[in-house]
């Protein structure tokens, strides 16, 4: 990845579209008032092309980035040249809210696809912290979601075999995209190469290719041209030892995330 020259900056819109997916269908959600407050904290939006770095490791930062459209990564480049994807972000994720407290990142943040982000100055977040305690707790919840996810990514790499890892990851992405309305009847867009999936799952391209073929031959799912189609969600979740507890979805979303019939949601 290379440092990006971002595409043109736009003034933040006045309607609450930027924060629409923040905590959507999670165990706790934002009120409309809280969305408006967060929306007004946005200084501007910015677009970046795919595969470019948005925030570089160890550079002092005084803004945080909310992903509005596209997919982003947190990644660490190892000394041997390997890139380790340690997080994938979907719209509604506050990709570096932790920078508000840390003031620099111990990892890069990059655009996996073409993206649009909303940029919130830390000074505005400080105003939120001072005057809106409930919203501040919601933002804290967001960083706790991050921590929960990281814990499970560690366990996935430490204890699951190759097929389980990929199945688990696909189930997680399905659940997260389902929660923000980006999944339809088991189909969703996932603009990741086999190499990207390998970097998430600690597998070589060849190994990912074989695992995806195995999942397809077993009738569980198909991954082709950036599109995932899950044929048997319960079967895939069983293979991946996946339960969505750590995503803290609301109950209907959690049920749908593992293929259990439940209430429909937006």
């Amino acid at each position, binding site marked *: 990845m290379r440092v990006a020259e971002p595409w043109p900056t736009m003034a933040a819109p006045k309607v609450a579209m930027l924060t629409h997916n923040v905590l959507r269908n999670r165990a706790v959600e934002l009120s409309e008032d809280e969305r408006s407050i967060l929306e007004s904290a946005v200084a501007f939006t910015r677009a970046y092309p795919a595969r470019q770095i948005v925030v570089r490791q160890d550079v002092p930062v005084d803004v945080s980035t909310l992903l509005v459209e596209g997919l982003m990564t947190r990644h660490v480049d190892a000394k041997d040249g390997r890139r380790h994807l340690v997080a994938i972000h979907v719209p509604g994720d506050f990709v570096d809210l932790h920078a508000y407290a840390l003031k620099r990142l111990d990892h890069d943040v990059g655009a996996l696809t073409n993206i649009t982000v909303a940029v919130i100055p830390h000074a505005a977040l400080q105003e939120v912290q001072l005057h809106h305690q409930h919203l501040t707790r919601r933002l804290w919840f967001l960083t706790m979601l991050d921590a929960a996810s990281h814990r499970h990514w560690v366990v996935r*790499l*430490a*204890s*699951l*075999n*190759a097929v389980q*890892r990929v199945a688990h990851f696909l189930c997680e992405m399905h659940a997260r995209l389902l929660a923000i309305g980006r999944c339809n009847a088991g189909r969703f867009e996932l603009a990741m190469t086999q190499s990207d999936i390998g970097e998430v799952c*600690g*597998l*070589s391209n*060849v*190994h990912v*290719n*074989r695992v995806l073929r195995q999942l397809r031959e077993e009738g569980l799912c198909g991954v082709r041209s950036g599109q995932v189609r899950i044929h048997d969600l319960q079967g895939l979740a069983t293979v991946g030892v996946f339960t969505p507890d750590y995503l803290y979805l609301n109950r209907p979303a959690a049920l749908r995330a593992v293929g259990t019939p439940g209430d429909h949601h937006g």
Partner: protein
Amino acid sequence: MVDERRYLEPQKDAGRATAENGVVILEGPDGVAVTMTAEAADLTARSLHEAAQKVRDGDSAVPSEDDGNLEDPNRP
């Protein structure tokens, strides 16, 4: 509440190596998932054979000054 900690034990299940698209994939046990060249796989196989033979020969004792933590997993 009892904290029933489970320690990693030596695996009794074997890993399985397969050839795929010009490389060797070693899977398992315990989440092992490694892709190797044929040469690296040969060397790994030889190293595994030699280590296994040492264990069977009783030639794998830990030097006495280093073995304290192996006796009691609850020791720091």
